[in-house]
């Protein structure tokens, strides 16, 4: 049986929690976020013919990423970087966070999820920005907590990356 610790990172109110709510098993209430800054959920995926258990550390987003949260990242095999597609700044914050992680740890598989794609009118991310990110090596997914679009694919992609590492 294979298990992986996966973190979900992203700024405050980018919809990390609502994004995965429908796709993960959970036993803890969302109050954990505000009390200790993290909530642990679980997701089973199948990749390359294997069942993999992803233990998801949904880390409470703060604009200024604090030391408290960094320690939660220890031991992770990969992470989901989540940004709000309707707020450009959250993408910049997310990427800054990714850089920060890259400085602290050896290279770790990650996928970038641009959330709230159902709000197309307010979308702030330029298509060529997405292309550049893809060129930098990011697997970029547009998703919607409302429709559930691409969530499964994002997890599968991350799992594959972790298995192939």
């Amino acid at each position, binding site marked *: *049986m*294979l*298990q*992986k*610790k996966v973190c979900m990172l992203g700024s405050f109110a980018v919809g990390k929690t609502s994004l995965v709510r429908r796709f993960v*098993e*959970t*036993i*803890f209430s969302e109050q*954990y976020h505000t009390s*200790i*800054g*993290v*909530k*642990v*959920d*679980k997701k089973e995926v199948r990749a390359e013919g294997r069942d*993999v*258990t992803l*233990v998801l*550390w949904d880390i409470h987003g703060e604009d200024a990423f604090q*030391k*408290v949260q960094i*320690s*939660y990242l*220890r*031991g*992770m*095999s990969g992470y989901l970087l989540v940004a709000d597609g309707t707020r450009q700044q959250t993408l910049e914050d997310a990427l800054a966070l990714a850089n920060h992680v890259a400085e602290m740890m050896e290279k770790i598989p990650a996928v970038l999820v641009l959330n709230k794609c159902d709000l197309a009118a307010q979308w702030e991310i330029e298509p060529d920005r997405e292309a550049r990110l893809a060129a930098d090596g990011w697997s970029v997914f547009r998703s919607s907590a409302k429709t559930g679009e691409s969530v499964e694919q994002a997890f599968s992609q991350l799992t594959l990356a972790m298995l192939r590492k």
Partner: protein
Amino acid sequence: MPEEAQRRAPIPPTPESQPEDKQALEELRHLIVAPEQEGLHEIRERLDSKERRAEDISSVVAEAIQMRREQDGDHALAEALAPTIQETLRESVRKDPQVLADALFPVMGPAIRKSISESLRSMLESFNEALEHSLSLRGIQWRIEAFRTSKPFAEVVLMHSLLYRVEQVFLIHRETGLVLSHVVAPSIATQDPDMVAGMLSAIQQFARDSFNSAGQETLGSMNFEALEIWVEASPDAVLAAVIRGHAPLDYKLAMKEALENIQQNFSSALANFSGETGPFRAAGDRLHQLLEARFKEKLGGKGRPRAAIIAGAVALAIVVGWVGYSSYLLWEWSRFLNALRLQPGIIVISGRKSGGRFRVQGFRDPLAPDPEKLLSEAGFDPKKAYLELMPFYSVDDVIVLRRAKELLRPPAGVRLSQKNGELRAEGVAAPKWIAQFQERAPWIAGVNSIDVSHLQNSDHVEFNRLKGVLESAVLVFPLGRTELEPGQEAALAQYENDFQGLLVQAGHLGGTITVEIIGHTDSTGVEAANLPLSRQRADQIFKVLRRAGVKPTNLRPRGVAASEPLRTEDTEAGCRYNRSVTFKVAFSPAPPVH
């Protein structure tokens, strides 16, 4: 490789072309095998030279060790190196202990501190527990139990505190927080262990971060109502036990040992963990050993009814015993009172129980038995009974007799008795005591009259005895003679003493005696001749007595011839008795002296 073999096989020489051919062959061989030979030579040289060999190995030794360590499942490398490293350390210490001391210094402090704080915490925990239990209702029950079973209180507390159940045990990879192994006690509902373990790790890190702890400390335990989560950490793994109730501190030790064991057995799997939990399946057995349980309900369920029955039986026994004992006491008391009433010299007016004590009121003669002694003999504690007995003079015959004996002190030959107020003395006493008795006895309380009719004067008794001896004496004479028969002198000498004693007794009786010395003859011969013969015989004895010092005024000799025969003269023996002298004693009171 047959072709190559053919190619390399030497061409067989022919006898006629031998010298040139041989040279050509040598050249050919040189061309073909020289490089290989050189290579072989170099290899041999390398193998033969120690220096070269060391040089070769030195370039790969670090990588080789690392590689072996990574593959190592059975610790062969560690086992191989251990003796050398131990020896090295020993040698290093022997040469200069300071070097190793300096190297260890940074880890010694924290290790010692941790050990001390752990010990203090354990001590405080048990102390707190004891304090907590000593004041609660349950604590009081336990105190009673301790008293009943005569065990130390602390032991009873410990016994009850030991009741616990380990419901789940998690083995968690320390860095990732992923579950390596998880065991659950039967029929325990659990949440998803992966998420629980993750959250547990998160909480651990949260605690570390919150209190700015940079090190590897772990949260030792968490409490949640009746649940406790005990956590032990090793460098790569965390062991968490979910316990319902209070586990003993020994359990902490068991966890430590299990974790050390796991850390040792799975060290490489732990260090290289990449999410694959298969290798840790074997650790499950070790975790199962940590699932312990002691049920409070079972102990209590069995213990309580038995305790209740015992307690009930004891209470019943106490009540029955108390009632029985009280009745027994009352019965004994009334028996004692009856006995007391029968005691001469004691009069009981009232005997009752008041204020938990027995109380007797009445009168007691000083010569009556000691009532406290009677109490003791009846089995009562004299200190728990009041005896209010006023002194008085009893006229009970027994007490009067006792009083008379006390006051009169009768001599050995006298027996006193008391009946209906009359005191009677019997026996022989000196005239002085008889006089005292007659004078004093009527004054004794309770003596109404005295009876001395059976009391004899001891002087009279002796006088009469001596008188009897003398009056029965017969001194015999031969026929017609006035000298005693031979052998009679000795008898006479004895009578002389009796004379003297009789005179003394007569003096005691306040008078004097006159002893008639009577001479006798038998009836043979004539009266005229017999009369003087009898008189001469009496005079003969008179003379002897006078010589012995008897005053003549007390003696009166006379002859009666055959007129007062002692015996009939049918026989010679009777005649012989009649040829004799006898005595007759008369007492006469002394004339009053004026």
